[in-house]
């Protein structure tokens, strides 16, 4: 009987290792271990041998059977793995074909620029507020120390409405609204559309500004310089900037701030009018007259204000040469940003 076991063991062992596919192996498995297998025959024969030999023989048969079972399982795994590999090898795709087109939308470059600017100033504590486009003469001019016959009104080609209103010529009226409804400290920026009757390659009747205002008990020009230097360096990277004197009725002292031309690095080109500098900001210390018009005591508060032209910044950042492109909204333009 032992001989028989050994021959079954050898035969089965060879069949298992010889199986080429998992289906072959399944056949081998049932032939070896199934109901009509030689092993089952052996188990039946066990009853015919002497009683005292049975336990040992039975144990031996089981050991062999277990070994074969392990062998089959292992072989099965190997076969499945290699069969999967060869099956995957036949399912090749052209991986260079384009992907499924997912819809890609774009944010308008003006929105992107406003977000960039408000993010930078937000980091140093400026709160973003909203103003109104339709204003009264008081908010757009009077309260900002631009009296009715002030020559500075020439700098503002104003659109007048059929009501007693104007389309705001700058975002500065938002300063007045903010100060009227809050007390210092105030630290805000106000992005928005502004309007001037002017139209050519560099002027659009509608454009965007961002107004900044900081009011507190004591505020100095040095803090204005620090704030704007931080802002410009964050926006353009470390680049030379210069402050030069200017005039705005609502600030005193007033200044305009230039950055070295980003196109020519200060060598002089068409973009900067061969000056090497680009004007990007107007700023100054809030005029005491403005504080008076909102009911603040100018001896008790100080502040600085500034204004940035959004289109100007967007044009510089993206190399856009015609301001009208922003409002034409041609998709071939929009898709580039």
């Amino acid at each position, binding site marked *: 009987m032992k001989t028989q076991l050994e021959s079954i063991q050898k035969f089965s062992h060879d069949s298992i290792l010889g199986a080429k596919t998992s289906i072959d192996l399944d056949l081998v498995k049932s032939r070896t271990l199934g109901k009509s297998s030689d092993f089952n025959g052996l188990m039946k024969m066990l009853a015919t041998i002497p009683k005292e030999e049975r336990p040992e023989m039975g144990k031996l048969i089981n050991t062999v059977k277990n070994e074969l079972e392990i062998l089959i399982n292992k072989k099965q795994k190997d076969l499945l793995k290699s069969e999967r590999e060869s099956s995957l090898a036949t399912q090749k795709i052209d991986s260079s074909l384009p992907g499924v*087109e997912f*819809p*890609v*939308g*774009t*944010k*308008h470059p003006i*929105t992107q620029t406003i977000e960039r600017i408000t993010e930078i100033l*937000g980091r*140093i*504590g400026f*709160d*973003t507020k*909203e103003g*109104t486009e*339709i204003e009264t003469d008081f908010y757009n001019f009077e309260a900002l120390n631009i009296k009715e*016959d002030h*020559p*500075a009104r*020439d700098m503002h080609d104003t*659109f*007048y*409405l*059929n*009501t007693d209103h104007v389309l705001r010529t700058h975002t500065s009226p938002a300063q007045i609204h903010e100060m009227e409804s809050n007390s210092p400290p105030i*630290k805000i920026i106000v992005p928005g*559309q502004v309007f001037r009757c002017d*139209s050519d390659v560099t002027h659009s*009747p*509608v454009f965007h500004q961002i107004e900044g205002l900081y009011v*507190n008990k*004591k*505020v*100095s*020009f*040095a*803090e204005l*310089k*620090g*704030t704007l230097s*931080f802002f410009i360096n964050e926006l353009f990277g470390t680049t030379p900037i*210069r*402050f*030069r*004197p200017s005039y705005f009725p609502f600030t*005193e*002292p007033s*200044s305009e701030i230039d950055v070295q031309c980003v196109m020519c690095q200060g060598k002089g080109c068409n973009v900067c009018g061969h000056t090497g500098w680009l004007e990007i900001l107007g700023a100054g*210390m809030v*005029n*005491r*007259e403005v504080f008076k018009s909102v009911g603040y005591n100018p001896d008790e508060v100080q502040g600085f204000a500034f204004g940035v032209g959004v289109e100007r910044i967007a044009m510089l950042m993206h190399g856009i040469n015609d301001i009208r492109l*922003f*409002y*034409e*909204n*041609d*998709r*071939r333009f*929009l898709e580039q940003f």
Partner: protein
Amino acid sequence: MKFSLNWLKEYVTISITTEELVNKLVMAGHEVEEIIELGHELKNVIAGKIISIEKHPDADKLVITQISDGTTDHQIVTGANNINVGDIVPVAIPGAVLHKGFKIKASKLRGVPSNGMLCSETELGLAESSNGIWILDKETPVGVDFIAYASIQDTILDVSILPNRGDCQSVYGLARELSVVLNTPLKKLETTLTLTDSSSTLSFSNEGKEFCDRYTGRIIRNIKKVDTPLKIKRFLQGMGVGSINMVVDITNYVLLETGQPLHAFDLSHVNGHDVSCKKANAKEKITGLDSKTYELSTEDYVIAINGKAQAVAGLIGGNESSVNESTADIFLEAANFFPVSIRKAQQRHGLRTESSIRFEKGTDIEAVERASERAAHLYQKYAGAVVESLTIDYKKEGVSSSSSIKFAYKDINQLIGLNLSNQDIDNPLIKLGFEIENDRVFVPSWRVRDCIDWPCLAEEVLRINGFDGVPSVLPLETVIPSKKERKRELRDLISDFMISNGFNQVVSFPMISPKVAVNQDLVIKNPISLEASVMRVDIQPELLRITEHNLKRQQENLKLFEVGKGFSLVNNQPKDTVFCEGICTGALFGKSYQKNVSKIKGDDYFIIKGLLLACLKQTGFNLEFLSEEDVDESELIESSLKNKGDDSNSYIPGKHTYLTVNKKVIGEFGILHPNFLDTYDISDEVAYFKLNISVLAKLNVEVATYRPFSKFPSTRRDIALVIPKSLAFEKIERFVESNKPRTLKKTFIFDVFESEKIGSENRSLGLAFVYQNDKKTLEDKDVNRAHDKLSEKLLKEFNLSTR
């Protein structure tokens, strides 16, 4: 304003390059917009005397001239016919370069050698056109280097003068500023005069007390008929003023030089009469020096002679009393007028003159007499005039030429953020003409309108000392920004959603054409064009214009949106509303070679419906839909979806649905009506949506509360219903909702189709029902019992069959 560098150099020494000078000006607040080089290419032009003129043997229109340069003669052939023997003219000798780089060399004209060219003003770049050769003054030295002699080479700086710096609207004013910036002395204006006593007494009455602070009149006689000196002509020309005659040129010259406007009357019109500054009579007419007739009103101030207006004060002189070619005796006016009135007069008459643009920014009251003396000096020096002392010397009582400001050094330091010594603050101020006495600063007469409060002193100190020394410091005090405004937060969230789903954001103008406006409540009185003259009530007109623009340029499958404002008039007050509006034409996903994706192409209506549901869900709102019939007009007006005067329906009936959140109408969407789209020349199908963000921002969003979900598997049962097309799905949906068994968790459509087999009046609706129990695995028999009961009810309710 244009400035001649040569002229500036008459009063200050400038020993730096133009580039350095420009930089100094810019850093002192005087932006230089343009630098114009005049005559810099010119070479080898001399003053020559014509010795003889002979006929050309072979040409009727040419003559042969002999020109002397004082030592040698030059033969030059010319076509000129305005020359005579003895004339002194500019001569370009061989090797000369003229305007625009035109080179002169020796040549032959019809066989006769010609060694150069006689020049007109045009060839020297001094005039656009000229009548023949430039005949020079007899005194011009023969042989002189004419380019240098006539100051032809000059640099013109176009300086943008700030509105508060009227004092720099003159050559002397800018020179004064330069002398501080360059730290060099300022030369005095030459005004030496031999005065004769006034020959007559003229009365002056000032009826415009609030208008005229100072008025002077001087009689100048026997002004000889001489040519205006070349240098004066050149200076005027460099600053853009043409030469007329000696009398007028001097008034213009002094105006540009001192910033003080002057007016010369022909003495015959003034002498022996009464001069007054008064308001004009209503509808009084005056013909100006420009030959135009101005109708005056009682708002206008005039200079009247015997009560009749002879000049619109500060604006323009009258033709009648003006000087002419034969005038030798003049009455020279120099005065000081109130800027605001001048500004109003300019606006009333649509006229800005060299005089009025100076008066409107305020002129120096001290300059009145100086300018009168300066002009008199020039008349005497160049035209031998007899100058009388002032005949009228009026100064309004109480008028002061200076003002003072109280200040403290520490305030100036604090405002700048520096710690300057008193001397460092004093020095620039003193150089600028301020005088300091203890805690008071006296403002120079030319700055009194500009320097009013003490921060202007800080500005002057910064301007002259420069900004470089000011430290850069970030404000230290923390001001905590408040939460983002809800409106702003929503527009950002919704924009981001739209962009993520393939929409391109556009930005447009809020002004539109009356042709597409629903009302004319807010109209621009002075629009650039009619096309942009009415304030829009929503974004639609602009969005469709942009759609049209793109479609016409072969941009298909458009998905555009804008977040912007609409404007309306509520109780006569303007009100703005923030909208998010969008359009979709063609397929949402574009064309794809991947079939399963392009299959989604098709019904834009349902794409937008799904898009909006997802958008609002992501923003925290539970969006519901309301059909056209179920909505009240008042609700639409309240939500700014309908406006006064707007009766049109821009959507296709039946393809238009309103959006609600918490029962409040917040928007609408649908397919635009082709008739409506005709206005825009759009023939494609356009799906449109509009969300009112201002209304949405007022609605509450509840914080989500967790609800446990079942751990047990769900079971699905499907029904294919054949339903009449007239039966809206929402009716079935509502019925199911109100009759659903406890275990029904979800119902959805898995298929909709139409076919001849089920009849053209019907459609097939594949409905899936998902059952699930929270506490145990559902057994088939339980599911079946619930489902059968529900489907039986459903079929019976609507009298339907299954397929």
